[in-house]
Every structure is written in C-alpha cells, then in structure tokens.
C-alpha cells in the first residue's frame, strides 16, 4: 500500500508549545511517528544564570502557565538542598496545598479538552465549570488565579488567611462531588469505553525504557511518585495513596487523572485542617557554594531542577527538565499501529493541551497537497465516536446538526 506522510504542526492554537509530528501512514494506520520541537525554546536556563537567586523562582514560574507551582517548587527544593535547610512547618503545609490545588485544576483542564475531542462537549463544559472553584480558591489563598509567586528559598512569601482556608474547604466539597460524578461518567459509558479502551497502549517495559513519568507511566503499572518516594514538605505527614493502574491505554490515563484529583482533595483537606501555626520563612540571606537537585511531581510528571552555586549572587548552572521532555518520545512506542483518528487522542493523553492542529497538510508521495484544518481533524475524531455510538444503538440524535 502507498505510504503517506502527514505532518501535524508546528503551530496549533490549543497547545502552549508548538510541535511538529510527522506521521507516516499506510491507509489509515500509523506506522511511524517523528516529533520535532524547539519553536518555543526561550533559553530560560541561560537566562537564569544572569538572575539573582531571589529572581530565579519568578523566572521558572513563567515556564508554563499551568505548572506555575511545580517549577518554583522543584527550584526552591534544589536551593534548599544547597543550603541544607528545611522550610518552617507552616510553610511546608502551605506549599503542599498550593501544589495539590494546581494538580486538580490542571487535570480538570485536561479532562475537559479530552471530552471535547471525543465529542463529549458536556464533559468539557462541566469540567471547566468545576475548575473555576479551584481557581477561585487559589485566588483567595494566594491572591492570583495563576502565577502565584508563593515560593522562595526557605519558605513562602505569603500566609493563608483563615477566611480563604474556609472558602477552600467549602469548594473542595463541591469539587469532590463533581470528581466522583466524572468517575462514574467515564467508567460507566459504553461508548467512551469502546472509544478509549485499548487505544495507544504504553506497555510497562516501554514506560521504563523511555523513563516516562507521572500520569503517562503510572497507568502502565509503574509504581512511582516523587512525593512518596522522596518525601518532602507535608506529603509524609498526611494520608494519601499513589494511583497505579495496569492497562496503559488512554482510558486508564483518564481514570488515573480523575483518581489522582480525588487523592489531591484528600491532601488539601488534611493540610488545611492540620495547618500548624508559626513562621512561614526561614530567612535565607545567601546561598553557599555547592550543588543541589530538586524534583517535584507536577500534574504531568516529574519536574527536575539541578542548580550549582559558586557562592556568588547568581547560579552558575541551572538545568530544568519538564515532564513532557521524557513523555513525548513515548509516541514512538504508542502511535505505530494506531488509527489516524486516534492519534489526536493518544497525544492528548500525554500532554493536557495537545489535540489537533491549526492546519495539517496532507502530502502524498506524488506531491499533491490538500489541507486539513483543525476542525477537520476534530471532526474525524468526533465522527469515530458517533460511528461507535451508532453501532451500539445509542445514537439518538443527528450529530451533524450539533457539531462545533
């Protein structure tokens, strides 16, 4: 059969990073995939070498709008390792609370987008509606919906007020109810099961070989979580579980994310209930010479920061590794053999924001060129869901009258 090359990317409106996926397909089956990144390379590691130790957490916060707690978290852990200190107890609980709230809002954002791409726009609306409660809580607690600027070496910058903590406890009740409803929706729906089960399986062996992290590898049976394996801050003082599933397909990844949110609600409740009184800052003045590694379990996986100090006011090296850097290469293992309409889903299952593209050029070997838009690709994916629905006898209305 004739082989066709389909480039997806590099620019699409739904992902914060431009990427180019070059798919080689035979008929409708993907046989190979190549990923190219780098359009958004901002040289942040080099920039950090020109900033003072106090400025660096602000810089790394701006790496990603969704993980704006995870990067400063890992960064201050690396600094505290050079200093060989720990933050005061109240600061530790505050840090963990902000980190977990961020996890819930990131996972809900992903869930909404995933719902949209399989043609379940109700899930999209509901997930983003309940995400607002989390963002409101963050605004009450830290002063901002995003980019909280809470972290500094040796503590946090702002204290929680009792009023804000009461508000968060109340909104967690609503969020937990919504999460349990989502869990029911995902696990009971036969159409969703048929659409997602067995799609894009990442095996245990591949997850180990590619060193994948977070909700990409845990649904494949890899039992690891930085928060448990190397306990820091409040994570060893509260009761919670690591979610590990066996299947490794898109369905398991969705279930894993929802279950993780429920664990996060547990952590937030315990942190706020047991919030100790006291200082929130250890009063760090300068960083001694040395080197330190900090890592934190971000919503998408492990964030890793390495810092080296020579005793001056600036780091001499600051290495940053975001989880997607390890998770993206797993497409080489998951995409071959998949249906072309599933590729958007498989890629979306790894990165919360990726689905389709602004424009996709379909080029065959003879040089003829046609252009698929983002809407076309979304429609391909939605059509597949409806085909399954029709087969199951569940289609009760005409899908084309209500498309996007």
């Amino acid at each position: 059969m004739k082989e066709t090359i389909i480039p997806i990317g590099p620019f699409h409106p739904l992902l914060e990073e431009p990427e180019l996926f070059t798919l080689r397909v035979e008929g409708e089956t993907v046989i190979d995939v190549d990923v190219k990144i780098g359009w958004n390379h901002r040289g942040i590691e080099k920039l950090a070498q020109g900033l003072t130790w106090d400025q660096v957490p602000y810089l790394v916060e701006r790496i990603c709008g969704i993980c704006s707690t995870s990067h400063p978290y890992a960064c201050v852990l690396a600094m505290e390792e050079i200093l060989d200190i720990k933050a005061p107890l109240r600061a530790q609980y505050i840090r963990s609370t902000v980190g977990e709230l961020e996890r819930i809002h990131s996972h809900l954002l992903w869930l909404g987008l995933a719902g949209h791409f399989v043609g379940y726009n109700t899930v999209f609306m509901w997930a983003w509606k309940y995400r607002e409660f989390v963002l409101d809580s963050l605004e009450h607690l830290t002063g901002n919906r995003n980019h909280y600027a809470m972290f500094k070496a040796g503590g946090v910058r702002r204290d929680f007020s009792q009023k804000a903590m009461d508000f968060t406890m109340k909104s967690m009740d609503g969020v937990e109810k919504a999460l349990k409803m989502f869990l029911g929706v995902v696990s009971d729906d036969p159409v969703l099961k048929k659409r997602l089960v067995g799609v894009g399986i990442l095996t245990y062996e591949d997850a180990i070989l590619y060193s994948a992290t977070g909700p990409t590898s845990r649904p494949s049976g890899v039992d690891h979580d930085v928060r448990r394996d190397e306990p820091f801050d409040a994570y060893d003082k509260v009761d919670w579980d690591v979610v590990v599933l066996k299947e490794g397909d898109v369905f398991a990844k969705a279930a894993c994310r929802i279950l993780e949110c429920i664990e996060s609600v547990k952590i937030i409740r315990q942190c706020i209930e047991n919030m100790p009184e006291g200082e929130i800052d250890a009063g760090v003045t300068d960083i001694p010479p040395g080197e330190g590694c900090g890592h934190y379990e971000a919503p998408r996986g492990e964030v890793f920061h390495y810092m080296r100090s020579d005793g001056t006011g600036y780091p001499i090296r600051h290495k940053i590794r975001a989880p997607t850097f390890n998770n993206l290469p797993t497409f080489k293992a998951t995409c071959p053999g998949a249906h072309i309409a599933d590729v958007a889903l498989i890629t979306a299952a790894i990165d919360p924001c990726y689905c389709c593209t602004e424009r996709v050029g379909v080029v065959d070997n003879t040089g003829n060129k046609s252009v698929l838009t983002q809407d076309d690709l979304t429609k391909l994916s939605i059509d597949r869901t409806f085909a399954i629905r029709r087969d199951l006898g569940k289609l009760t209305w005409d899908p084309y009258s209500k498309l996007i």
Partner: protein
Amino acid sequence: MFDKPIIDVLKEKLGDRIKDISQPRERRIYLFVDGKDIQDAARIIFFDMKSRLCTATAIDTRLGVEIIYHFFIDEDGMMINLKTVAPRPDLIIKSVAAVFVAAEWIEREMAELFGVTFEGHPDPRRLLLADDFPKCIYPYRNDYPQSKIEGFEAFPIDSPDKDNTNDL
C-alpha cells in the same frame, strides 16, 4: 530493594572504574567516572539497579564540558548523579543513548547547545535549535557571543520607516 547501602552496592558493581564517590545528603550520591567507562556505568545503574533516567546536565567548565546523568531509584528514593567530563578541545564522549533510549533527546540537546559529540548516538539530529542556526556556535557555552551573530538573524525586524499596516 538492596540489603545494604546503595553506595556500597555501587562500589561493588563498578569497582575501580569509580574515580570519586560521595554521599553529601541522605538521598544523594555523586560519583565520577572516566569518559571511557560512562556506557558501562550507565548500563549498570539503569538496568541492574533498576533506576530511571531523570535527565542529564552539561556544564561548561575549564577542563571541558562536565556531564552529569541524574538517575533516580524510585523504590529507595535515592538519586545517583553520574559525572564525567568530555575533555577539551574536541569534546568527544561515548553516547549513553546507544545503551538505552531514554537518553536520546537529552544528548541531542547537549550536543547542539554545548557542542559535545556523542559517539554512537542513534539519531544525532538537532532537537531545539533552528535548522539555519549557524554551525559551530553553541549558545549555552560561556564563550557564546552576546552580540549579534554574523550571518544569522533569528527574527528579521522591519525597518521603522516601512509601512506595514496593510499586512494586518
């Protein structure tokens, strides 16, 4: 997972290939090996000791480019930092990506940003830099020119007197 301290396991498995080893914190081990032993050491730490590769860091120093592979053993919560140096002037070192695929992207990144050549890398293309970025200029080195690079303009800026309102 191990019945004795991991630092002792490392000493036993790697033997005299270790040039320097220390455990400055409870959960951090730093060890140094020669460039010729890096593949063996990485294979033993990754496969035999069941760790995962977090990432690798390159640092421009006076001796050459120092490379640190960060491994993390999830079961024991121990981070093993495997250090080596790609010596000046040619900065050639054996590729760990030839041993396991997890190191592929990070070595591509180090190769283009620091100019290290990884011998035996299965896919030595550029990862992050633009295709038309000049060869032999490495942005993360300390000698990277801060001024404009001859013959390369990343974002061509229109002259201020040109009327480009019609483009909108």
